[in-house]
């Protein structure tokens, strides 16, 4: 008999995905990839929300307030991506690169 899937399973997958995204943000040099890893971390946090809402039953149904919160997170993430990519394009236009190691004017 296999062990049943518990809340911990979902939380652990979510946490691992978050850690992978975090490592990506720290290791990669390409601004677009870093931004994608940020989105990955955001999506991993979403999984936690859905899992908690499913395991916290209200009248025999999932707690839909968690889903509403997720709806808002997805909307804000979409707005964030649009603005972030516009900033990356503007940066590329002025510097000609998306490599974060070459964008270090403020360091000197």
């Amino acid at each position, binding site marked *: 008999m*296999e062990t049943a899937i518990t809340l911990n399973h979902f939380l652990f997958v979510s946490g691992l995905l978050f850690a*992978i995204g975090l*490592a990506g943000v720290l290791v990669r040099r390409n601004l677009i990839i870093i931004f994608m890893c940020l*989105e990955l971390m955001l999506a991993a946090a979403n999984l936690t929300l*859905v899992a908690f809402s*499913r395991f916290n039953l209200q*009248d025999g149904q999932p707690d839909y307030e968690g889903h509403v919160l997720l709806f808002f997170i997805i909307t804000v993430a979409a707005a964030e991506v649009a603005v972030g990519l516009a900033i990356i394009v503007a940066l590329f236009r002025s510097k000609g690169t998306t490599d974060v190691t070459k964008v270090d004017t403020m360091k000197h």
Partner: protein
Amino acid sequence: MTFLFYIFAALALIGGIGVVVNRNPVSAAFAMIVSFLGLAALFIQLDAYLVGVLQILVYAGAIMVLFIFIIMLLDVQAEERRKLPLFSALGAGGVAVAFAALLLVILTRSEVGTASIPALEAIEGPGTSDVHRIGELLFSQYWFPIQVVGILLLVATIGVVVLSKKELK
């Protein structure tokens, strides 16, 4: 349904690793889509149908198309092979591994998350789907946040137009 969980969790995690290790940005973007599809399947396994579909439509659809569009517009080349600075690579890997290990310790010790998925009460009839419930909540209890989000999207749209202008005055 246990094996489905492992398959889709593995899909999400392998996609995530693919994003981090792929040198080519387009491959990384496609790995990200795979990761989001696995994540959406996990949502659906948690009976969050609307959220699962939204994840595919908005994340795997709209957002990733935007990413790939920008990658191709800027003609981003694959990162050249370079020696990772040992210190920063160790630091980044260490932070991620420490985070995962801490999580494992906390989760194995806690009593909270050891329950298996509770069964839903079977209900039939109109107005019982999760789309209906979420819509009802959005337009009654959460009427104000949804207005704010609408304004946020408007501001983001205007901001993108301003940022994309050739010359700022």
